[in-house]
């Protein structure tokens, strides 16, 4: 069957499934709308958390980034999984015992302060909106490439779907659609990976193929990959180029950021008991690990396939590079999306792909008659184009499209829900209109979810130029603002509202300030974004970890100089530390 028809069929079938699930699990009360009535089975919650957490960035972006970063890409693998250890050990069981609906609500109750609650709401909204813009862009790319509709139509379809099951179903609805979405996305991710692993190494298990031997030539995949990329002037795949301290801080920022993301935390409010929250985090990470251990294998295999496609003969030989006229079909299709680009700088009609930023190799390349790297590959297309590069059947390509859409939609829905809960529950019910009835609060929750969908759609259609930067910022923000405030709220009695508020504001402003200083969000950067200029050699991506340490220091320092928190704060801490009662 033709790819277009097949993709419509597969994607259409998954959409019908999501809508069906939303219809049978409509939320009838605020408890069901915010936390699915706390009836979710821990394994189901683990699966929903995995889909909630794994976004367009994990599905379509990460393996592509790792393919070009090599060892340096490990920061995403360790950072985005190690965060679940922090979540399971330090936050989830205690927040489940606390037993209310939202993260800002916990901060407000623990620090006995409406101001702290409002500061937490601000952090939450900034974090969640930056995230959602990235999801909507992912939906747009998939729709425009695979479904051949323009981005606006694609976004419209995506928004209608999310609107339908997030606004109608609430947390209860999105939980079960996320379970279905997990199944679709993991299938769409692993099936092509198995095919490619089999083609390149003869071993169907990607995690083993990663350390296996090549069918052609017989050497180890990784050793051979190190060889071909260094021959083209790139850093060895298994070595990377980032400094040790930067890798350390980026990993730490992604871990603490993961643990502090409100849309992930709130999933652990939906299970019946404390011990379900503990085990559920294990299930969530197991389901996530199924994708996260395959991703680096896909990355190495894709980098190998791509290099071999372009560099068909010895480096420097006259016919060593692929002639543009002989380019495969997928090259054309992705070139049309603008995510792949060829610029014949030396006019020889062949594609030279090498590292022209490496002065030593650039000098050699000049001797070959090369005049600069001619291929531009957006990392976002690696996973999406992988099945086409490997020449896999059309149904696999259709599956990947459905999987990518599932990954983006499930995360978008989770984010919309925490935004609407923060507005209707924390701002409206908590601060502005405390007398509001349950029924009206539910209506307000639905209205704010609807407004958030529209805003997210707008951000997806007009993505701010700094989306990638801001997504990295979202982790830094969560790590430096919410994570320390929640952690200290559970593990200390002494930290009071002054300490918590001062700490959150310090972490937030320091991270934002550092980011603007080097990346220039809204304004021109004030200093060149290079290691020599960074504080202790920490890049803006890793600064959230440093800012989190500042947050801890400020919160503890300010608290020790101001009066201890009231007795009710102490009682709350004692209650959440003990599972019974």
């Amino acid at each position, binding site marked *: 069957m033709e790819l277009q028809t097949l993709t419509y069929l597969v994607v259409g079938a998954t959409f019908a499934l999501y809508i069906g699930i939303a219809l049978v699990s409509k939320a009838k009360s605020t408890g069901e709308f915010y936390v699915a009535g706390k009836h979710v089975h821990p394994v189901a919650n683990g699966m929903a958390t995995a889909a909630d957490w794994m976004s367009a960035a994990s599905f379509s972006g990460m393996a592509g980034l790792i393919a070009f970063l090599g060892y340096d890409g490990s920061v995403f693998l360790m950072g985005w999984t190690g965060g679940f250890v922090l979540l399971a050990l330090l936050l989830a069981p205690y927040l489940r015992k606390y037993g209310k609906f939202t993260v800002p609500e916990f901060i407000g109750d623990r620090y006995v302060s409406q101001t702290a609650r409002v500061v937490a709401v601000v952090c939450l909204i900034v974090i969640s909106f930056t995230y959602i813009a990235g999801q909507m862009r992912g939906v747009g790319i998939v729709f425009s490439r695979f479904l051949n509709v323009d981005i606006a139509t694609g976004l419209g379809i995506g928004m209608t779907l999310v609107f339908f099951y997030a606004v109608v179903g609430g947390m209860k609805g999105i939980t079960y659609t996320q379970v279905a979405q997990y199944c679709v996305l993991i299938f769409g991710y692993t099936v092509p990976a198995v095919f490619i692993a089999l083609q390149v190494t003869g071993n169907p298990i990607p995690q083993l193929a990663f350390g296996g031997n090549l069918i052609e030539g017989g050497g180890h995949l990784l050793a051979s990959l190190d060889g071909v990329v260094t021959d083209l002037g790139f850093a060895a795949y298994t070595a990377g180029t980032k400094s040790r301290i930067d890798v350390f801080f980026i990993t730490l920022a992604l871990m603490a950021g993961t643990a502090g993301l409100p849309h992930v935390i709130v999933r652990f409010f939906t299970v019946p008991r404390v011990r379900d929250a503990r085990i559920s985090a294990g299930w969530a990470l197991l389901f996530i*690990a199924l994708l996260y251990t395959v991703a*680096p294998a896909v990355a190495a295999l894709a980098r190998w396939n791509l290099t071999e496609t372009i560099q068909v003969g010895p480096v420097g030989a006259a016919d060593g590079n692929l002639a543009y006229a002989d380019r495969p079909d997928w090259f054309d299709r992705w070139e049309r999306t603008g995510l792949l680009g060829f610029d014949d700088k030396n006019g020889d009609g062949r594609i030279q792909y090498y590292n022209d930023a490496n002065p030593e190799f650039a000098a050699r390349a000049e001797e070959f008659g090369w005049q600069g790297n001619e291929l531009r590959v957006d990392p976002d297309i690696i996973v999406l184009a992988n099945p086409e590069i490997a020449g896999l059947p059309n149904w696999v390509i259709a599956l990947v499209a459905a999987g990518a859409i599932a990954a983006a939609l499930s995360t978008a829905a989770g984010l919309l829900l925490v935004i609407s809960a923060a507005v209707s529950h924390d701002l409206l019910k908590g601060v502005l209109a405390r007398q509001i009835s349950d029924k009206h609060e539910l209506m307000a929750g639905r209205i704010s979810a609807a407004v958030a969908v529209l805003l997210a759609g707008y951000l997806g259609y007009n993505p701010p130029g700094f989306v990638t930067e801001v997504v990295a910022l979202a982790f830094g923000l969560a790590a430096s603002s919410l994570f320390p405030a929640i952690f200290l709220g559970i593990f200390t009695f002494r930290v009071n509202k002054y300490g918590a508020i001062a700490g959150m504001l310090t972490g937030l402003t320091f991270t934002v300030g550092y980011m603007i200083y080097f990346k220039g969000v809204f304004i021109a950067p004030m200093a060149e974004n290079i290691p020599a200029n960074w504080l202790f050699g920490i890049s803006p991506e890793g600064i959230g970890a440093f800012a989190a340490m500042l947050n801890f220091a400020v919160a503890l320092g300010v608290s020790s100089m101001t009066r201890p928190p009231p007795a009710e704060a102490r009682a709350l801490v*004692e209650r959440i530390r003990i599972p*019974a009662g």
Partner: protein
Amino acid sequence: MSAKSRSYWHDNLRLVGVCLAIWFTVSFGFGILLVDQLNRIQIGGFQLGFWFAQQGSIYAFVALIFFYAWRANRLDREHGVDED
């Protein structure tokens, strides 16, 4: 805080501390700080440090959370603070 709660919390902190030490060792230790040393050891097609950074740490994290959940549930029962 009652004596019972205090001793429960003390044991709980010790469990969390041990788990976090393992968490740190497999990722920041083996995958980042000691990566060059471990990369001299080759297992199959993998250099060991690289394997920890891109595979081993993730397996260890999964095992660690299940281990923690099992021990924490047992701790609840031993101290009589479990939910049922």
